[in-house]
């Protein structure tokens, strides 16, 4: 059996055990961002090709999305979930031009947002639309990936993703182009 | 300067300096004398063994290694105007049986600049050198002996060669586009990979030319031999001078 032979060979060949380094608990990165976490997040988000809007609180957020993205598939509203279940025909989802998702937190160091499948009914949704709009509670912006993974640990679901800005490629002579396969435009609404 | 140290120094002159660039050996010897050192040059010395070892034949190099140890084991320090030879002794003589003699020689073999800065604790040699000097940071000295901080690392920037030159009167140390890219000599690489080697050398020289270097200096004459070979073939308006020659042009 492939498995047994592989494990046996590993056991025979592995070296003396060396210890795992102690987990980082204090990264001290917060002090580095003189402008504060939210400003750093906004700055980096723009640097990676994303956009943002700022509103005050969930009521303003709801009004904002209604006014500016009324045609979008807004997955903050649980009612539309049943229209896009996991076994939904791909062609239905492929037609979506704009998708709105609630994301769980943002990372200041790289402008990324974390969202897992507890926030959308079909895993294609964060990727397939031309425009992705994510709503992020600005109090949920943390400093770096160490903190990010501490938050995710123990809460891992079937699928989750960090998204930093729009889809991109530089495969054609190192020219940066947005919208390779995923969203051409990614916007964060901070509330 | 008449400081005298109670030290016996063994001078190791690399084979290609011995044969083709004796002036570098002479400059090194004169400099060490000026610094008040008692310097000996064992006549039976030959080579550090690098050419064989870098070609995969380190076993064939063992008799050469042993000759080195034999010639230099009685000295407090072994000093050499060559980063790559010193790196080779310190790192790759590990295949010899590590007798006390071998360990002593490996520990106390120094490249010239690191010897002056780290052992003699000096960095101002009262040099007068009104020229535009481009420092070529030979790889084995830079990354192997840590003569400076390589550009890849995120650490405080420092360079022993720079330290020894920056106080020279009239000197202008040139900033290059690629501060520590390899020149392409690489020992036998220069003949087994002639096209890449020469291309790398030309690119280094063009960097110096673009930025206004008059004289290229380095801790390794092997790099300079390769670069000078290209300079002369291409008739570039550049000169080379080993660091020992520049440091020796002092008023100590």
């Amino acid at each position, binding site marked *: 059996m*492939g498995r047994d032979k*592989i*494990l046996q*060979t*590993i056991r*025979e060949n*592995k*070296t003396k*055990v060396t*210890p*795992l*380094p102690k987990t*980082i608990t204090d990264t001290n990165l917060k002090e580095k961002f003189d402008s504060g976490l939210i400003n750093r997040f906004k700055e980096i988000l723009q640097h*990676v090709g994303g956009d943002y809007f700022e509103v005050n609180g969930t009521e303003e957020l709801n009004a904002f999305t209604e006014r500016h993205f009324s045609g979008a598939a807004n997955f903050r509203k649980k009612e539309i979930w049943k229209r896009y279940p*996991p076994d939904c025909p791909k062609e239905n989802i492929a037609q979506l031009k704009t998708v709105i998702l609630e994301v769980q937190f943002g990372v200041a160091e790289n402008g*990324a947002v974390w969202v897992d499948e507890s926030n959308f009914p079909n*895993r294609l949704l964060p*990727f*397939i639309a031309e425009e992705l709009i994510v709503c992020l509670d600005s109090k949920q912006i943390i400093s*770096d990936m160490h903190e990010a993974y501490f938050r*995710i*640990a123990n809460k891992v679901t*079937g*699928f989750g*993703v*960090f998204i930093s800005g729009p*889809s*991109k*490629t530089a*495969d*054609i002579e*190192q020219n940066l182009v947005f*919208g*390779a*396969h995923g969203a051409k435009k990614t916007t964060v609404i901070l509330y | 300067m008449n400081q005298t140290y109670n030290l016996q120094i063994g001078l190791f002159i690399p084979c290609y*300096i*011995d044969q083709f660039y*004796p002036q570098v050996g002479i400059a090194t*010897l004169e400099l060490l004398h000026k610094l008040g050192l008692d310097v000996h*040059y064992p006549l039976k010395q030959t080579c550090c063994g690098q050419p064989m070892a*870098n070609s*995969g*034949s380190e076993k064939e190099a063992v008799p*050469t290694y042993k000759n080195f140890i034999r010639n230099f084991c009685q000295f407090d320090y072994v000093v050499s105007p060559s980063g790559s030879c010193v790196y080779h002794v310190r790192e790759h003589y590990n295949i010899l049986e590590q007798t006390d003699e071998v360990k002593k020689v490996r520990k106390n073999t120094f490249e010239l600049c690191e010897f002056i800065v780290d052992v003699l604790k000096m960095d101002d040699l009262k040099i007068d050198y009104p020229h535009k000097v481009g420092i070529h940071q030979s790889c*084995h000295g830079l990354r192997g002996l840590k003569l400076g901080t*390589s550009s890849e690392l*995120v650490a405080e920037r420092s360079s022993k060669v720079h330290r020894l030159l920056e106080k020279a009167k009239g000197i202008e140390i040139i900033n290059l586009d690629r501060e520590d*890219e390899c020149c392409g000599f*690489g020992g036998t690489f220069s*003949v087994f990979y*002639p*096209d890449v080697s020469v*291309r*790398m050398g*030309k690119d280094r020289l063009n960097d110096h030319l673009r930025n206004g270097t008059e004289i290229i200096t380095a801790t390794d004459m092997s790099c300079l031999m*390769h670069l*000078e*070979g290209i300079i*002369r*073939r291409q008739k570039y308006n550049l000169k080379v001078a080993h660091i020992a020659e520049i440091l020796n042009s002092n008023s100590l």
Partner: protein
Amino acid sequence: MTKHSCKAGQFLKNEQYAAWHDETLWIVREKRDKMARAVPEWEKLRERASKIKEHTLSELDNYLIEFEKQALKNGAQVHWAADAAQFNQIVYNIINENNASKVVKSKSMLTEECGLNLFLETKGIEVTDTDLGERIIQFRNEPPSHIVMPAIHLKKEEISELFHQKLQTEEGNFDPAYLTTAARLHLRQKFLEAEVAITGVNFAVAETGTVVVCTNEGNADMGAHAAPVQIHCMGIEKIIPGIVDLGVFIRLLARSATGQLITTYTSHYTGPKPGGHMHIVIVDNGRSEHLAKKDYLNALKCIRCGACMNTCPVYRRSGGHSYGSVIPGPIGSILAPHSQIKTSSDLPFASSLCGSCSDVCPVKIDIHDQLYRWRQDLSEMKLVSPGKRYAMKIAGKILSKSKMYDCLGKTARYVIKNLPHKLIYNRFNIWGKGRELPEVPKESFKQWYKRTYQEKGG
């Protein structure tokens, strides 16, 4: 001259092109430097990543068992492949069991290593590589020249011509945005039609059974979420212990690879989608044997970032295809001899041993030390040319005896000084191809010293 040396010579014949290739990759190295310098704790991160990998390799069997246990609990199916043939067969079996014939694949050097595409194609399976760079080289029927930027050796005009032929884009339109849009539309169709999606794995987390895939394009996700069946392929060395360890690696990976803070998408696949199937294929293909080779063990820490390629002055001036190995450049030169020792015996010599690669490696692989060590081992195995070995044997004899050394030196100087120029600079004088030989002094240092000091009784 070795194989690689000849190919490098060919590459350099087009000086302008070679200069462009070199500069393009150097820019990526500079981007990496800028990113790294903005992280004051960068060297500590490297050290930490290195130690995590070292520890993991020392307990690899236990972590693999834990990973499998968790993945199975999550509803994934786990397969083990001892070698490339088994791997290809396992993947084909999954595709066949699902009556599928259309497959999309995101970047995986492991699948290149095992020759998966060719194998599947002979079985009548259509495989579409969906990373834009990979799709370009798939159209051209050539291997990637870089593990992260597979089409880095191509100019936009060449890609425009290729797309004109394959995708009917406008002839002569080489606007990157136009070409990318054409590829987007073409590949979107493939994503929607695909019945199976294959991805590589950047990191496999033992604690949770999660596989992590990092892309800028989102093609791994488009594939894996649209197709009912997703297959993730990993070498055994991709394991890391826990979720929190990802913090270190994700911070290092994109900065080292492309000079980005993070890839656009960092996807964590832990279980299948409702109604879908998730397969993980764990591949050995020589890695467990490699574990026994203490001098070369560190190479198993590699996270496939490609930083060593971007910094290597030889790679930049010879191009990935000149190596003739699945993975080119410095890391390729120390990995290839494990599996293809005869055909890659020249690769450890394709280096000036400058050490830059070791300094940029995010997991601190001692690449330049391993290159040196391989040279010794290959020579011992008589896989270095007999001419070279014989020359070194002679050199070893001469250079260990001062009288012989002195004599040879004197002879060499005499010959160079006195023989006619045409005789010296003949086709056997490889040094003389692009350089002048050093000028010959009237005496060696030793002769000067003897004359100056011994005569004076000094």
